[in-house]
C-alpha cells in the first residue's frame, strides 16, 4: 500500500514538475529581461533618436518603423486572408481544387520564415523592383501572416450558425450581402482575435525583413514606403551581436527587448480581451 502511495506521489511529481518547468522558462525569460530592462525605460528612451554611435539615446525610429511595418502588413494580409477564408468557408464545395487550396495553406504555414525572406527578396525587391524598402518588408511579412489569418478567420466563420445564413438567403438577400451584413459582423470579434495575434507575431519577426529593407540606422523618420527603415527586433539583434561596444550597449539591448516584449504582450492581451468578451456575450 505504501509503495502505491509512493508511486502516486512520484507520478504527480513528474507531471506537475514538467508543467512547473514550462512555467519556469517563461518566468526566467520575463524576469531576466524585465528586471534589467525596466531601468533603461524612460520617456527619452522611447521618444528620441539613438546618438553617439548607438551607445546613447532612444528607440524612436525603431518603434515608428515597427508600427509602420505592421500597418503595411495589416493592409495587405487582412483583406486578402479574410477574402480567402470567406471563399473556403462560404463558397467552396469539397473538391480537388478546395483540397489543393487547403493543402497549400497548411504548407505555407510550415515554411520557415527565412525562406519567406528569400522569396520577398526575389519577388518584391528584385522582380517587382520595389527595392529594399519598408513596402517590400511589409509585403513579405504579409505573405508570412497570410496562412494564419486565413485559418483563424475560417475558424471564426465556422462558429456562425447556418440558420442565420439560411434566414437571410430565404428573404431573397444575395450571398455577398448575407456575408457582408450578417456573417462578417457576427464573426468580427473572432476574426479580430486571430488578426491581432498574427500581427503580434509579425511585429516580432526578424528573419523575413533581414534582406527586404531593414537598416541598422536611419537618420530621419519618414512615412515614405520606398525607404529603408529601423525595426525593434532587428535593433535588438544588432545591439546584442554586431555592435562594436557590446558590453557598453547591454542596458540599451535589455531596454529594447523590454519594449519589444511589452508591445507584443499588449497586443496579446487585447486579443485575449476581445476573445473573452465575445465568449461571455454568447
Amino acid at each position, binding site marked *: 500500500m505504501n509503495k502505491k502511495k509512493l508511486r*502516486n506521489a512520484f507520478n*504527480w511529481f513528474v*507531471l*506537475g514538475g*514538467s*508543467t512547473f*518547468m*514550462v*512555467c519556469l*522558462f*517563461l518566468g*526566467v*525569460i520575463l524576469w*531576466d*529581461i524585465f528586471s534589467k530592462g525596466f531601468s533603461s525605460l524612460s520617456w527619452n528612451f522611447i521618444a528620441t533618436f539613438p546618438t553617439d554611435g548607438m551607445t546613447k539615446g532612444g528607440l524612436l525610429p525603431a518603434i515608428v518603423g515597427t508600427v509602420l511595418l505592421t500597418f503595411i502588413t495589416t493592409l495587405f494580409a487582412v483583406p*486578402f486572408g479574410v*477574402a*480567402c477564408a*470567406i*471563399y*473556403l468557408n462560404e*463558397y467552396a464545395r469539397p473538391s480537388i481544387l478546395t483540397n*489543393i*487550396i487547403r493543402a*497549400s*495553406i*497548411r*504548407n*505555407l504555414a*510550415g*515554411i*520557415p520564415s*527565412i*525562406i519567406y*525572406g*528569400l522569396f520577398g*527578396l*526575389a*519577388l518584391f525587391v528584385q522582380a517587382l523592383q520595389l527595392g529594399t524598402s519598408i513596402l517590400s518588408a511589409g509585403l513579405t511579412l504579409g505573405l508570412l501572416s*497570410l496562412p494564419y489569418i486565413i485559418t483563424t478567420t475560417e475558424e471564426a466563420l465556422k462558429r456562425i450558425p447556418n440558420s442565420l445564413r439560411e434566414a437571410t438567403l430565404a428573404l431573397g438577400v*444575395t450571398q*455577398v*450581402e448575407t456575408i457582408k451584413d450578417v456573417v462578417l459582423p457576427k464573426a468580427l470579434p473572432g476574426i479580430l482575435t486571430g488578426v491581432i495575434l498574427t500581427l503580434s507575431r509579425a511585429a516580432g519577426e526578424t*528573419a523575413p525583413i*533581414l*534582406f527586404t529593407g531593414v537598416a541598422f540606422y536611419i537618420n530621419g523618420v519618414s512615412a515614405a514606403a520606398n525607404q529603408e527603415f529601423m525595426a525593434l*527586433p532587428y535593433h*535588438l*539583434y544588432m545591439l*546584442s*551581436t554586431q555592435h562594436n561596444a557590446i558590453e557598453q550597449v547591454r542596458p540599451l*539591448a*535589455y531596454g529594447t*527587448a523590454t519594449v*519589444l*516584449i511589452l508591445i*507584443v*504582450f499588449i497586443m*496579446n492581451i487585447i486579443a*485575449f480581451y476581445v476573445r473573452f468578451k465575445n465568449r461571455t456575450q454568447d
Partner: protein
Amino acid sequence: MNTKKREQIDALFKNVFKATGLITIALLAGIFLMLFINSFFFFFNVSPLDFFTGSQWDPETKYSILPLLVSTSLVAMGSMIIAVPLGILTAAYLSELAPPKVQMFLKPMIEMLAAIPSVAIGFLGIVLVGPGLAHIFGIQNGLNALNGSILLAVMALPTIVTISEDAINAVPKSHREASLALGANKWETLFRVTIPAALPGLIAAIMLGLGRALGETMTVLMATGNAAAIPKGFLDSVRTITATIAIEMGEVPYQTTHYFALFAIAALLFLITLVVNFIGEYFANQLRKFHA
C-alpha cells in the same frame, strides 16, 4: 438597386473570393519555383556530389551542405529531447489533473511563451544561457549547439503542449471509463490507455514542433556561435542552414554561385520541413479518422 445589379455584384465577389484562394496555390508554387530554379543554376556550377558529400562550407570555393545539415539536425534533435517529454507531460497534467482554475491560469501563460519574439529568446541565449553553460561545463563561451537546443526547446514547447493537449482531450471519455471500470487506477489509465490512444496526435504535435525548430533562424543565429564545421558534440559551436542564409545573403553579390548556393540550401531546408509537416499532417488525419 435592382435585382440584376445585385446578382452581378454577387457573382463578381464570388470570383474575387475564389481568386484569393487560387493565389494561395500560386504563392506556394512561386516559392517552390524560386527555390528550385535558383538551385538549378547552382548545380550548373557545382556538382551535387560535392554538395552532399564534401565536408566544408567555405563560400567562394567549397560548397558542402553537410556541416550545415549536421548542425541543423543536431540542434533540432537536442531541442526535441528536451521539449518532447516536458511538452507531453505538461499536456497530460493540463488535461487530466489540473483543476479548471489552474487551467485558466496556465493556458494563457503558454500562449504568452509562444508570443515572445525569437530575437528576444536569442538575446537570452547570449546573456543568460551562454554564460550559464560556460560556467557549468568550464568552457570559454557557451555559444554552442546545446545553447541552441535549450532555446529551441522553449520555442517548440507551446506548439507541442497545445497540440498534445488537444490530442489527449480528444480521446473519448468512454475509453477512460472502461479502463477505470476494469479496476485500473488513474495513472494506469493515463499511461496505458489515454496516452497510447492519443499517440497519433502526439506524433503530430512532435512533428509540428520539430518543423518549427528546424526552421527557426534568429535564436540559432544568435546563440550557437556560427562555426561552419561538422560538430563533434553538443558543446561545439554550430551553424545551421537558416543561420547561414541569414548571415551570408545580405552580403553576397546578386546571381553569383554563392548567391545560388544559398537558394540551394534553402531548397533543401524547404523539402525537409515539407516532409516533417507532411508526416505531422498524416498522423493528425489518422487521429481524426480514429475518433470519427
